[in-house]
């Protein structure tokens, strides 16, 4: 099999520019024409702990990282010690030769258990305890070594540019490691310079200095290691617009398009980035063309506003305030949402119930991370799914939609608001750290065909139709909805059981009808939302093996399936997007056709497998789960899917990733 993916990794201490370096590399490589997928791994820490970024390059769409590393770019000791083991034979390690004498035991940020494991391996190889010994192991495995004398090169650069302190220059080793990588991969130097300028666009002087450092590094690399590295291929010319975007920004953009005009949040990893991005872009253009404007009572005023739209972003005192404030805004008629992660969502449970009880369209964007409790604050998991479906006391409706990747996240963000307003109920848009903090090349977000569905929203009630009843009993269980401020539309809300006006009642027949009205909306949704929006089928549907999964496992599953299809092992894959109401009928028809059903998800207990059984009675044959805080890699699913088919093992637990 020819090489079709290049896996590159950079690492370093947090605060030393690992992120910037990875962003420069990703952007530069993508502008050379590669498809790019990048994954960020970091500790819950500001400075000092180890973070790394994996980037995969390919000439076809990349959806996942892989365990194998072809080229490891380092500028500190810890990255070498931790990751040199992942580099494949004929792969390469870029490193600082000055650091090879450092003792591993002197690196304070490596956990004791990791140190012990590494020292044990070195001992087995009959080696010592230094960084150089780790490099020696790699060398024995056929890995090529690319020592760069960072400080010597910088000293020369300092002399050339004049008047610069070495300590200032030393901050550029991250970009130098990227430049060295670019030489080995034989990529266009100018694209690298452009990317450096883009990432440092607010600091032209720094950009120029980094470009000079990159030039010197590339010159050194060409002189020292010309044509030496073999894991490389040329990017293909792209014939369409391409964008390199991360998950939180994609969702933020989706919200703007959706018409979300009010967002609340309490700082939490990894959700805050979305809200901060929105706040940074709080004013944006809208097209206020009179001819195409909908029947809106404020049309005339809006036309005078030079086409400027805006979103109010409020940082609240806690997540309780975040969901209740967003709900208040939704009551006033704004499309409103909040973004959070597991711990914050736990605090929102009561507010979610109130919104369900009062039929308020509020959207909660939930970026899952490792739980329970504070769990793994910066790591990945999909363990909040059952909680989103059942969160809150009592019974009330809510829709739960899960996105499979960054592109889907953009469109699903819009869909979430449509569902919320159509069914007048809270909607949880389920995402995760792997979507939030990854970057991916995508095509242009095309929202020209996006339709906004505000359901039974009305901004005025005609008193000729009698008194307005907010919770009017109707055939589809959805009532016309006025908003605070609407003339003649006065209504009451209460968390208590209520009558059609919204006044408190404990009268049993009204209680029964109201329960049936609220819960009945889920049946309406179940009837109305087409299967194609609820389940996406991938792969070879005639295969005997069916994978069922949800959320960001989509990427590595698809890549693994593609890999196996080349050797004749075909899989079908049902990616379930709408988790509540669950597409039970559709799956009840589909799944019995398959000889073997394999679920793939990132939690301990197989939450989707449980939900599937609960809603359809269907039991999966094999469950592939992972809960070490790192997303499935393509390599891992490649191996475990095959293993599931061959061994029919009921539960397979995987745990790769550093």
């Amino acid at each position: 099999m020819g090489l079709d993916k290049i896996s590159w990794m950079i690492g370093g201490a947090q605060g030393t520019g690992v992120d910037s370096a990875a962003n420069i590399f990703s952007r530069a490589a993508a502008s050379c024409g590669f498809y790019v997928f990048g994954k960020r791994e970091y500790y819950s820490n500001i400075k000092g702990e180890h973070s790394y970024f994996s980037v995969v390059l390919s000439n076809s769409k990349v959806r996942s990282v892989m365990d194998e590393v072809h080229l490891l770019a380092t500028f500190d000791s810890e990255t070498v010690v931790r990751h040199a083991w992942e580099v494949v034979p004929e792969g390469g390690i870029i490193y600082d030769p000055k650091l090879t004498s450092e003792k591993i035991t002197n690196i304070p940020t490596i956990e004791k258990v990791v140190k012990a494991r590494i020292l044990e391996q070195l001992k087995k190889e009959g080696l010592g305890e230094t960084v150089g010994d780790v490099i020696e192991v790699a060398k024995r495995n056929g890995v090529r070594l690319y020592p760069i004398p960072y400080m010597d090169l910088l000293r020369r650069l300092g002399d050339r540019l004049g008047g610069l302190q070495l300590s200032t220059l030393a901050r550029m080793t991250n970009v130098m490691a990227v430049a060295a990588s670019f030489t080995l991969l034989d990529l266009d130097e100018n694209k690298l310079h452009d990317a450096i300028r883009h990432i440092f666009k607010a600091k032209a002087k720094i950009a120029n200095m980094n470009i000079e450092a990159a030039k010197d590094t590339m010159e050194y690399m060409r002189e020292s290691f010309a044509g030496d590295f073999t894991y490389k291929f040329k990017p293909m010319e792209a014939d369409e617009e391409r964008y390199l975007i991360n998950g939180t920004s994609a969702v933020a953009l989706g919200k703007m398009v959706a018409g979300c005009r009010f967002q609340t949040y309490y700082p939490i990893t990894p959700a805050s980035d979305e809200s901060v991005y929105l706040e940074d872009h709080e004013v944006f253009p809208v097209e206020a063309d009179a001819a195409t404007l909908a029947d809106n009572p404020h049309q005339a005023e809006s036309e005078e506003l030079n086409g400027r739209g805006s979103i109010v972003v409020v940082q609240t005192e806690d997540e309780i305030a975040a969901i209740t404030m967003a709900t208040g805004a939704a009551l006033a008629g704004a499309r409103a949402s909040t973004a959070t992660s597991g711990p914050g969502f736990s605090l929102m449970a009561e507010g979610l119930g109130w919104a369900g009880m009062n039929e308020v369209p509020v959207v909660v964007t939930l970026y899952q991370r490792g739980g329970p409790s504070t769990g793994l604050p910066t790591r990945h998991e999909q363990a909040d799914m059952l909680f989103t479906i059942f969160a809150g006391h009592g019974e009330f409706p809510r829709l739960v939609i899960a996105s499979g990747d960054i592109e889907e996240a953009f469109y699903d963000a819009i869909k979430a608001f449509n569902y919320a307003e159509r069914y007048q109920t809270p909607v949880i848009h389920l995402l995760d750290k792997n979507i939030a903090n990854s970057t991916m090349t995508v095509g242009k977000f095309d929202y020209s065909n996006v339709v906004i569905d505000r359901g039974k929203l009305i901004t005025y009630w005609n008193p000729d139709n009698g008194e307005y009843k907010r919770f009017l009993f109707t055939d589809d269980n959805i009532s016309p909805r006025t908003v605070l401020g609407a003339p003649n539309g006065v209504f009451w809300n209460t968390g208590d059981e209520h009558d059609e006006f919204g006044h408190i009642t404990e009268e049993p027949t009204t209680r029964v009808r109201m329960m049936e009205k609220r819960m009945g909306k889920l049946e309406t949704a179940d009837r109305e939302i087409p299967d194609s929006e609820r389940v996406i089928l991938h792969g070879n549907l005639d295969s005997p093996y069916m994978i069922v999964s949800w959320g960001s496992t989509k990427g590595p599953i698809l890549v693994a399936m593609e890999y196996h299809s080349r050797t004749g092992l075909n899989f079908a894959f049902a990616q379930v997007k709408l988790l509540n109401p669950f597409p039970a009928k559709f799956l009840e028809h589909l799944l019995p056709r398959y000889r073997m059903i394999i679920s793939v998800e990132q939690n301990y207990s197989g939450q989707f497998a449980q939900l599937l059984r609960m809603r359809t009675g269907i039991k999966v044959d094999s469950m592939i789960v992972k809960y070490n805080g790192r997303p499935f890699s393509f390599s891992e699913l490649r191996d475990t899917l095959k293993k599931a088919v061959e061994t029919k093992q009921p539960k397979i637990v995987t745990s790769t990733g550093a």
Partner: protein
Amino acid sequence: MAVKLSLANYRTDLHNDWCPGCGDFGILSAIQMALADLQIEPHRVAVFSGIGCSGKTPHYINTYGIHTLHGRALPYAIGAKLANPELTVLIAGGDGDGLGIGVGHFVSAGRRNVDITYVLYDNGVYGLTKGQASPTLQRGLKPKSLPKPNINDAVNPIAIAICSGYTFVARGYAYDTKHLKELIKKGIQHKGSAFIDVLQPCPTYNDIATKEWFGGEDRIDPATKKPIPRVYKMEDEGYDGEVRDPSEAAEKIQAAIMKSFEWGDRIPIGVFYRNPHIPSYEERISSRIPEYLENYPAKQVIMDANNHPTARIEDILNEFRIL
């Protein structure tokens, strides 16, 4: 406005199930009278409440009425007000609701100074759950439902409000409806967060701070043979809490906090502090989003006649464009 709105326009025909003699009735009337005096159309008003007896207030008022969660009325109200700053937003909440379970929101709301009016029903007990001690009950007191005297110290709602940033801080008395009505009107007209602590006797569970006690019926003036009321109006004695120049603020705040500790034989009501010089949250948003007040979130046109989005993100997307 063609037709003058009367008190009847602000009433609902619901059966009111508060205990006979409850101070809540006075507060309800004062709110309705204030709205009628100001001639604010019912659909332009939203009254938010939390949980407890006070929580039922919105159901008795013919305006938008949002009876929310325990302690959370403030964030709901703030969300609504920021989405539509043209609304007149009132909050009716109990002392347990606002200063117990909701105290985090109470303090945080002060930092924002959103243009809302918060009426606190302050009776020292959790009435609806049968009379437990609330955060405003003094230590050592034992209203009839407590098995033992109150073990916690009381908070000072006026001082907390001032220190949290509320820019209009007053106290009313539920049995002086006319005076309370005027305070509520001033609160509504104040551009910023107004807080009105209302002494509201709970006739069922607080047998200490009763109407009779506030009225001084236990201490008869030997000369006039009349009770000497504990509650008095600060303005009658020349107290002035208005910050006329920003430079006076610190001094006025100190005086107001000093005044707020007066309790027992003499209990002041009226405006403790008002500072019109602090920008409201709405003004702060406007400094960043210039069209905010004209084109607030609830008013924005988000779709065209074909239901397609009006937002245009191409310029922003370009930040991410590679090819």
